[in-house]
């Protein structure tokens, strides 16, 4: 199959997945038991007409989809319901306009709430990912190169232990230690510094980032270390490494020109697969360190049972992961010349 057909197939599938997520997102929040209104409002003693008013306000009085029995959202005619008046259609229409509903808690548009948070999460995840990849890879390479020595065993155990740590707990421990040793106890910046000089603010944010990034790095470095180590061990046992040695190349040259390129291919795949876990980590770390990102938004929305926000965050997270996966997939296919031969 030519390269282009391959590309379009992948992109097409990603689009389909996004559509699936969009539909899933809608149905999750409508089909699952639990009336959003009753649970979404603080006062359980709300009178009936007040509940009705809330329902109309959030469009929950409209039929969910057209012809529920046949589960056909857009069928016209038989069910005598205007498909354009169903919740499903309204949801889709709002989405295309970038509207994700209104927060139960603040009554502000969800999109507005999430906008800034997305960048904060990307900042944290970005820093953490880069560090964990770099550190994990370096130690993984070292471990494989010096296989069966104490360096190898040490790195292996470190990787395994790091992988076994629950992210949120590591955050708690670091925060506990840190707060008793001069580190900020959470948040992205010290309150009241928004008018300070730019560099002060940058420094402040960086100080706040140290512990959460450290948590992130420790937990994820483990997996990269283990994967890099096993990938390189496999590569170094291959015949072409012996050929390279027979050609008279030095160990360093062989590592650089033959082994690493091949050993890194699985890392790209792992980065992609890890994206789901990365998000899970972000949720945990942001909750512990009160970092104002998407993960923190999930935590707060859960506490307050703010379903529109929860729904919006879920959608945003899921779509980002799908897109990132696509990018990783395409990158891999460019790196490995054997791929389109499928």
């Amino acid at each position, binding site marked *: 199959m030519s390269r282009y057909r391959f590309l379009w197939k992948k992109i097409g599938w990603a689009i389909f*997945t996004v559509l*699936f*997520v969009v539909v*899933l997102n809608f149905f999750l*929040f409508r089909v699952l*038991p*639990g009336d959003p209104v009753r649970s979404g409002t603080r006062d359980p003693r709300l009178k009936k007409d007040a509940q009705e008013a809330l329902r109309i306000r959030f469009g929950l009085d409209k039929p969910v989809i057209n012809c529920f029995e046949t589960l056909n959202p857009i069928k016209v005619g038989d069910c005598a319901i205007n498909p354009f008046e169903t919740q499903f259609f309204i949801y889709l229409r709002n989405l295309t306009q970038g509207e994700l509903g209104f927060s139960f808690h603040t009554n502000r548009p969800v999109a507005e709430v999430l906008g800034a948070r997305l960048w904060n999460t990307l900042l944290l995840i970005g820093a953490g990912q880069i560090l964990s990849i770099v550190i994990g890879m370096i130690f993984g390479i070292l471990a494989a190169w010096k*296989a*069966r020595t104490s360096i190898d065993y040490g790195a292996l155990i470190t990787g*395994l*232990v790091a992988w*076994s740590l*629950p992210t949120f*707990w590591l955050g*708690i421990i670091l925060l506990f230690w840190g707060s008793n040793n001069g580190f900020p*106890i959470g948040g992205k910046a010290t309150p009241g510094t928004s008018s300070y000089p730019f560099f002060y603010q940058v420094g402040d944010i960086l100080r706040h980032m140290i512990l959460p990034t450290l948590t992130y790095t420790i937990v994820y470095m483990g997996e990269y270390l283990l994967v890099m180590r*096993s990938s390189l*061990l*496999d590569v*170094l*046992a291959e*015949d*072409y*490494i*012996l*050929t*390279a*040695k*027979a*050609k*008279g*190349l*030095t*160990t360093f040259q*062989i*590592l650089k020109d033959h082994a690493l*390129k*091949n050993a890194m*291919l699985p890392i790209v795949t792992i980065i992609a*697969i890890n994206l*789901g*876990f990365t*998000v*899970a980590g972000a*949720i*945990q770390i942001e909750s*512990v360190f009160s970092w104002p990102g998407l993960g923190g938004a999930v935590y707060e929305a*859960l506490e307050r*049972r703010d*379903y529109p926000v*929860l*729904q919006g*965050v*879920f959608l945003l*997270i899921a779509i980002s*992961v*799908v897109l990132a996966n696509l990018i990783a997939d395409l990158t891999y296919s460019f*790196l490995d*010349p*054997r791929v389109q031969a499928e």
Partner: protein
Amino acid sequence: MAIKAAELKPAVPSSPLSGFWRTFSKNRMGVVGLVMLVVAIVVAIFAPLISPYDPRTSKGLTSSDIYNAPSAEHWLGTDDAGKDVFSSFIYGSRVSLIVGFFAAFISIVIGGVIGIVAGFYGGRTENLLMRFTDLLLVIPDLPLIVVIVALTKPSLLNIIFVIGLLGWTTTARIVRSQTLAVKSRKFVLRARAIGAGNRHIILNHILPLVLPLLVVNAILVISLAILNESTLSFLGLGDPTAISWGQMLNFAFGRGAMSAGAWWALATPGFGIVWVVLSLTLLGHGLEQVLNPRLESHHLMPGRPTIQSEAEVKSEDRKRRKESPVLLDVRNLSVQFLNDGSVAQAVHNVSFQLHEGEMMGLVGESGCGKTTLIMALNRLLPAAGRISNGYVYFRGKDLASASEEELADVRWSGISIVFQGAMNALNPVRTVGDQIKEAIIKHIPTMPPGQLNERVVELLELVGIAAEHKNHFPHQYSGGMRQRAMIAMALSCNPEVVIADEPTTALDVMIQAQILELLDLLRKKLGLAVIFVTHDLGVVAEMCDSVLVMYGGVTAEFAEVDTIYNLPRHPYTQELLKAFPDLSQPEKRLISIPGYPPKLDALPPGCRFAPRCPLAFERCSTEMPRLHELGDGHLASCHLVEAS
């Protein structure tokens, strides 16, 4: 046909299961993990007996009991409600283990079934199932779990189901690819050829081979389920009536343990999670090492220094067989492999001289040591090997004791190797031209880039590959082409000696003829000396000037090619010729040699061929024969030859 040596292995059945257990018990990581896990399970089961208090009641607790530091009554202090942390910790193990195992069980059953069905039946079914799996795989699972649990009841059962129903995707993928792999193996084809139906094949062939992988994956799934449950509980979605470690952390974190400085309430529950997850991780890792053993060494591990184990090396100059100069002079070369304390003698006292322009055939069957011998020449032995005796003289130096720098010079530019052109001898992600260029750059670093490219093209065309293939990857070459490319690469630095290691073994007879013709042509044109390693006596007769026959790591016989074939003196050579098909005498019935080649770590005390030799007598099984000279450079290691 009498088989002389008692080569039948002992009748103790070594089933895969008992073999597995034996190997596993030696794997330290796995055993530690198993022990840790057993401890956790025991604690969970006997919680009421171990725990000093019952954390399920709050009877008799007052506000002064909150966040008390560890003391004699409360070994790990008290929590935000005044309850004993240690007791909660003990009981907490139950929830984690129960959720972990049951949720994982659901995931594995679903994933296993989907994987096997998709892998085995293929076609539309597989497509559909895998697409669905991929969909779920991409959607990040924690957010999804969080959303679903948030919208439904946070009960333990619910959590188990949600985690279980969303956790099967990786299992399905792994099981599917393993099913595909097993399905294409020959014994499944054989089962079909016998007449077995799908059910029989799945139960008797697919399942037993998928199971090990499934078990390793199961362990991973359990640990993920436990982590997921604790995260859920920490986020406030746990079952408030169940004491879980995550729940304990939720309360502690949310109810001021930090500001109260109550580290015991924060550290302890997490430690429990780490203990259980780590035990599973270690166990899983250990299992994987046992079930999917990776080679113990790789090619970049440091080699072992050469030693001289025999007091005296025969240094008499052998009479020159030819007038032309000797390029390679190997004397009494011995190679050992060291593994876990045992020493295997792979090559013992082999000597030969390679003259300029000569093609020497190195003949022997599996386990005879011929590959080990040629790898030793350039010091390319695996990490467990070392030269234990002898010298390898090339260009006036002894390669056996040379330093790495000296070797790096000689390798390829002096002695190069044509490896078997199988897929993996060339790096699959670099172009062929690049890999040839690399060799040239290493040994002639001053060649300008334009000239480099020309040289690469020149080499490719020399072996009959069109220039346009220079920028193609190895997988785009056919088998014959790959072999030619290996030859081109071996010649790139104008070596004096080329070692061809079974270069035509995997190729069709016609392609083999092409490659042999090419080799012969090049040898004559470039004046090379060649060592041609093979088990094919026909090819050796066709191409070589002299022949070295190896058996059990020693020289059985060495002579000019005509002598070997028409006047062989060593019984092994004679028997081997009788076993080898000869199209010029097609009606001649072939006679095989009874028994099998000796195992390198269990060599017979006398002549290594004695157990299978039709002419053996008493002395043969006690005394190893010397290498006798029969005139004109003809050598044979056999007691029968001694008289002459």
